[in-house]
């Protein structure tokens, strides 16, 4: 799980720090433009590094420096708790004058305060460990070291962190684009959910028991669902179909693409729950999971996510929906604030506010900031 993040000079974040400690589920609220989605993008940067993107220009651009302030380095620090070990990863970008593409100024990884590697510009120093002596080498300033350092084994700290980062689930789904078709398999879902079919077949291919987990959740929401099938639709291409019961003996089948947007999100949620159970514990950041859902569904949906991650893993949720907000409490709700577009994002826990009466009413009135 993520225990702490520090961000400086990225989008609306200046000297920004958020400490989650050991919270398994977190709600982020705040007005439009307060920085919640930018925070998602910051976390997504770590996911992309874990998934092997190592060219700096593919991760950040000039426009990502706060207010175009390219003379100041852009810094990210993140503390991850994985298997009870604390991984501290730091990466700092800079954009010198006359350069078109940002480059690495500093990078490093520590495990329980032991340096695994450190980097200053192009120079990388891999610390001595049980299997090899300390090594020093150079790397192109525009390439991130974490994805390219050779791992000794799957237990190597670099390998453990990369696998964990690559499996981070970051979702802001566009239901219309989720068609359930697949041409391969993956355990690395896209943010917009467009590779839902690949993730679905990848999960069931590697963890068949995930089927029961998914069906258990889906049957609770759609009592007439019978099962789902994966049909070939061409060379190397498959389509997901869902079957619903008509009576005891008959059912009708429909393509996943024909489901409503909300129903597609039920499936996506079922996939998240199954993934966390069968190859987790995972980290999940779902930007506005209540999008597309009927108000009667929101509470159960959010609670199911919270419950799944309660005993392992971590889920972050952003929301403007009162039903979703009321499924969280003061100690696990963070309020993002930003006074204007010229000022940086600040974050506070809801417990730091003195709100008299209903939280939802205070949010509707925009009174939460005044009541500190």
């Amino acid at each position, binding site marked *: 799980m993520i225990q702490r993040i520090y961000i400086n000079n990225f989008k609306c974040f200046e000297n920004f720090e958020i400490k989650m400690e050991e919270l398994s589920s977190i709600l982020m609220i705040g007005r439009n433009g307060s920085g919640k989605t930018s925070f998602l993008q910051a976390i997504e940067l770590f996911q992309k590094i874990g998934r092997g993107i190592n060219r700096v220009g593919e991760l950040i651009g000039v426009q990502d420096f706060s207010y175009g302030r390219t003379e100041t380095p852009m810094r990210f620090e993140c503390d991850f708790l994985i298997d009870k070990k604390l991984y501290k990863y730091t990466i700092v970008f800079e954009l010198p004058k006359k350069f078109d593409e940002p480059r690495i100024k500093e990078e490093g990884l520590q495990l329980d305060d032991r340096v695994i590697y450190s980097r200053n510009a192009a120079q990388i120093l891999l610390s001595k460990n049980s299997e090899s002596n300390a090594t020093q080498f150079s790397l192109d300033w525009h390439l991130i070291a974490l994805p390219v350092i050779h791992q000794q084994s799957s237990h190597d700290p670099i390998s453990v962190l990369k696998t964990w980062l690559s499996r981070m689930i970051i979702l802001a789904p566009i239901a219309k684009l989720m068609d359930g078709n697949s041409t391969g398999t993956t355990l690395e879902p896209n943010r917009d959910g467009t590779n839902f079919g690949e993730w679905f077949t990848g999960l069931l291919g590697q963890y068949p028991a995930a089927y029961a987990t998914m069906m258990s959740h889906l049957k609770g929401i759609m009592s007439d669902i019978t099962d789902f099938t994966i049909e070939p639709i061409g060379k190397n291409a498959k389509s997901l179909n869902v079957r619903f019961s008509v009576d005891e003996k008959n059912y009708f089948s429909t393509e996943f693409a024909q489901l409503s947007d909300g129903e597609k999100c039920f499936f996506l949620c079922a996939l998240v729950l199954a993934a966390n159970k069968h190859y987790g514990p995972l980290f999940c950041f779902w930007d506005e999971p209540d999008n597309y859902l009927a108000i*009667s569904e929101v*509470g159960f949906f959010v609670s199911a996510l919270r419950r799944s991650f309660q005993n392992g893993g971590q889920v972050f949720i952003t929301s403007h929906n009162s039903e979703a907000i*009321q*499924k969280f*409490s003061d100690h696990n709700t963070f309020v993002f604030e930003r006074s204007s577009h010229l000022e940086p994002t600040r974050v506070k826990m809801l417990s730091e506010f003195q709100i008299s009466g209903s939280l939802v009413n205070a949010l509707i009135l925009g009174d939460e900031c005044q009541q500190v």
Partner: protein
Amino acid sequence: MSVNKYRPHILVLPEDEATRQMANGFYQNIPDQRYTQILPVAGGCDHVVDCFKSDYMSSMTAYEYRHFVLVIDFDKRPNRLQHIKDQIDPNVLARVFILGASLEAEDLRRSVGANLETIGQLLAQDCQNQTRNIWGNALFETLQDEIERAKKILRPLIFS
């Protein structure tokens, strides 16, 4: 997903944000969430009763499997329990439960030394394990009869 109105279910109406957070903690730790639903906060003890009477009491007659838990602070007023019961239709009263601390939820937080959600979680664990670690707290003492009634009727619905 709303609760199935045609099977036994429980609706929880919290008085305020503090009692809502306790209810949340309880709800997160019950075996099957599909039979319980937490409603938006009423905004004060008097509002709980008014809200129940205006918005929900008639539905208690319409749906025979509906049970209601009003979560309130007793604010050192033990007669508040009877005062509330006196305002509820006697025909549905057996399915309405009034629970809460004898002072305020905040006092419970200080007494137990945990956040409100965790207290709710511990209350659910007490119910599941049939223990009284938190339900036995002095702040619940004056309410033991109501707690016993809830254990007898609601516990099987939630935990079996």
